[in-house]
């Protein structure tokens, strides 16, 4: 592990730590990390806090460079970074604040099943789903699309799948941005991105992406659980995937062009990976249009994956998905940039909010929420590692005030992939998971080891921080029963 980070972390309260802007010349705002004392020890062990300070250099940044408790060392900004720029004052947009896997995200479905009813079917389900859902590096999907259809996907997002019969209007209502950002411009996308994207719709991918059958093992807020129709012992399904090679190519294409923007627009950042351009520049606008295409591609991808999951359950149980109550609770993006209005210095301001490994967590009554979630606040889905828990939370008004309506996105890594590979035996790990009642199927053993629970922070601790800090509220907790890894 790297040296302990020695920079200043001033305690604001039990869950917030400040890197003052006096730490480095060039910081325009403070850095603020959400964590408790225990998590902070891990956070200091790598270069993530330095990256929080680096983001504070971005032109147009307002309030603070924020980091969620699942923060870990990334490239450019840390993973778990949230920052916003004022686009009326030369605020920038940066591909590094979104990441290569644009609109990597999670969706959560509920079912009518109770654990006791289907506990003997979990293994069958995992085998059937593993057959039906293409997973692994460069995996290609059964849902093949022409170039014309691919362009439609970039504009329509998840609606494309719904029009094809792979879902319902209700699914769209239960997806962030209703499954598509407006203003996606397919002309801003390179031919290479098309080439990389064309065979990957309806595929899970690899790395930390997964499909999980889960059971609700703890309720935290009965009223909210009632609103969502969730009970103890109920079976849920979680899908974690993104925009695959299509999104990586867009990030690569625009990082290339924005490296040159640093000189062109006289922007000084301490890490070249923070290459950026003013949001209102031709380069900034082009990236945002292309990013929306990738975001829409990812929402369509997760919609197609959910369709395959519903089909898989229908195959095993021989009844329709509607009868099994396989309704989408919500789908959230956790690598994305958005134009949103937030209050800055008591004034409503239009901002470009970057969330890189962070989830939108809008509070109750926010206009972006569908009618069904106006009262509860936005559902926030937090996946954990394959051996521990995942969570359903809701957004809060405090998140609107403090974090541009944002919260954490997962557990956050604590051990490198190489260290995990060296120290963890895959067969022992699989046995341990089986003893805990968790079946794992993966396209390669390497991924299982790299993604082992030991490589991650305890998601329970991460969620405790965002709940106690008030930037989201716990609804219920799930534990995994069956996991498919890419």
């Amino acid at each position, binding site marked *: *592990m*790297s040296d302990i980070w020695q920079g200043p972390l001033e305690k604001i309260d039990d869950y917030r730590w400040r890197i003052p802007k006096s730490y480095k010349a060039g910081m325009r705002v403070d850095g603020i990390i959400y964590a408790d004392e225990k998590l902070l020890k891990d956070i200091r062990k*790598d*270069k*993530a806090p330095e990256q929080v300070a680096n983001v504070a250099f971005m032109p147009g940044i307002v309030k603070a460079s924020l980091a969620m408790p699942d923060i*870990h*060392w*990334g*490239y*450019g900004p840390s*993973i778990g970074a949230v920052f916003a720029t004022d686009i009326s004052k030369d605020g920038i947009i940066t591909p590094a604040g979104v*990441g*290569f*896997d644009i609109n990597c995200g999670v969706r959560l479905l509920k079912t009518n099943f109770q654990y006791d009813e289907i506990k003997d079917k979990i293994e069958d389900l995992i085998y059937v789903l593993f057959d039906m859902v293409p997973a*692994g*590096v*460069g995996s290609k999907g059964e849902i093949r699309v022409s170039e014309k259809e691919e362009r439609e996907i970039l504009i329509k997002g998840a609606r494309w799948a719904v029009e094809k019969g792979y879902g319902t209007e209700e699914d769209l209502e239960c997806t962030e941005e209703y499954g598509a950002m407006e203003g996606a411009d397919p002309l801003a996308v390179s031919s*290479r991105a098309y*080439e*990389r994207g064309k065979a990957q719709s309806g595929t899970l*991918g*690899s*790395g930390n992406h997964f499909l999980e059958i889960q059971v609700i093992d703890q309720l935290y807020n009965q009223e909210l659980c009632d609103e969502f129709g969730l009970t103890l012992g109920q079976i849920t399904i979680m899908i974690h995937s993104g925009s695959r*090679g299509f999104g*990586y*190519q867009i*990030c*690569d294409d625009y990082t*290339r062009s924005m*490296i*040159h923007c640093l000189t062109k627009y006289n922007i000084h950042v301490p*890490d*070249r*990976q923070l*290459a950026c351009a003013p949001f209102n520049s031709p380069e900034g606008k082009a990236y945002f249009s292309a990013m929306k295409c990738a975001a829409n591609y990812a929402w369509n991808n997760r919609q197609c994956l959910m369709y395959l999951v519903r089909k898989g359950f229908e195959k095993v149980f021989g009844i329709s998905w509607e009868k099994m109550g396989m309704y989408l609770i919500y789908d959230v993006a956790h690598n994305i940039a958005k134009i949103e209005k937030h209050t800055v210095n008591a004034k409503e301001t239009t901002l470009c909010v970057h969330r890189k490994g962070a989830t939108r967590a809008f509070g109750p009554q926010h206009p972006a929420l569908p009618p069904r979630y106006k009262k509860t606040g936005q559902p926030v889905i937090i996946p954990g590692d394959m051996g521990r828990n995942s969570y359903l939370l809701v957004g809060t008004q405090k998140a609107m005030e403090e974090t541009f309506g944002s919260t954490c996105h997962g557990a956050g*890594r*604590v*051990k*490198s*992939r*190489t*260290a995990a590979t*060296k120290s963890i035996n895959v067969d022992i790990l699989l046995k341990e998971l089986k003893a805990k009642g968790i079946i794992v199927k993966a396209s*390669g053993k*390497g991924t299982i080891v*790299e993604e082992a629970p030991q490589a991650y922070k305890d998601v329970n601790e991460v969620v405790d921080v965002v709940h106690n800090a008030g930037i989201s509220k716990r609804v219920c907790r799930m534990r995994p029963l069956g996991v498919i890894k890419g």
Partner: protein
Amino acid sequence: MVEQGTLNPKVEGSSPSWPILTMKNYTFIEHTADIGIRLKAKTLKELFKNTALAIFEIMAQKKPSAVNRQPQVKKIILKQKAQDLDELFINWLNELLSLSSAKGLIFYDFKIHKLDKNSLEAEAYGENINTYKVNTEIKAATYHALRIEDKGDFWQAEVIFDV
């Protein structure tokens, strides 16, 4: 730093276009989320080539069933321009990753014909990805903590990949 990786030293097949790979070393740099490597090489050309070789070795190994088969080699010609050496290096690696994904190829050898700090001309030799077992997806090479240094009698690079 945890372990040494060695690039495939063996030469299989008898096609004249099949390259001779020499044994080269790289080491992993500890990074919480991603993969970082450090390499040394006698020349800048060798540094560019060895980093590319390292990427594809980390990503994939040839399937045992394909080892003795005559490879179906696909040659791709690459030309890259950049403002400086760092940018050229990152563009070179990301172009290879992009081509690998778009064309379904794993690259196993490279000939660098021309290289200065602003431009590169090279050939990359790849085989169908189906003849490989793919272990890790590398999304991209990044500028974060990138170092390319002329150490006098050798060149050294440190680069972090998004995985």
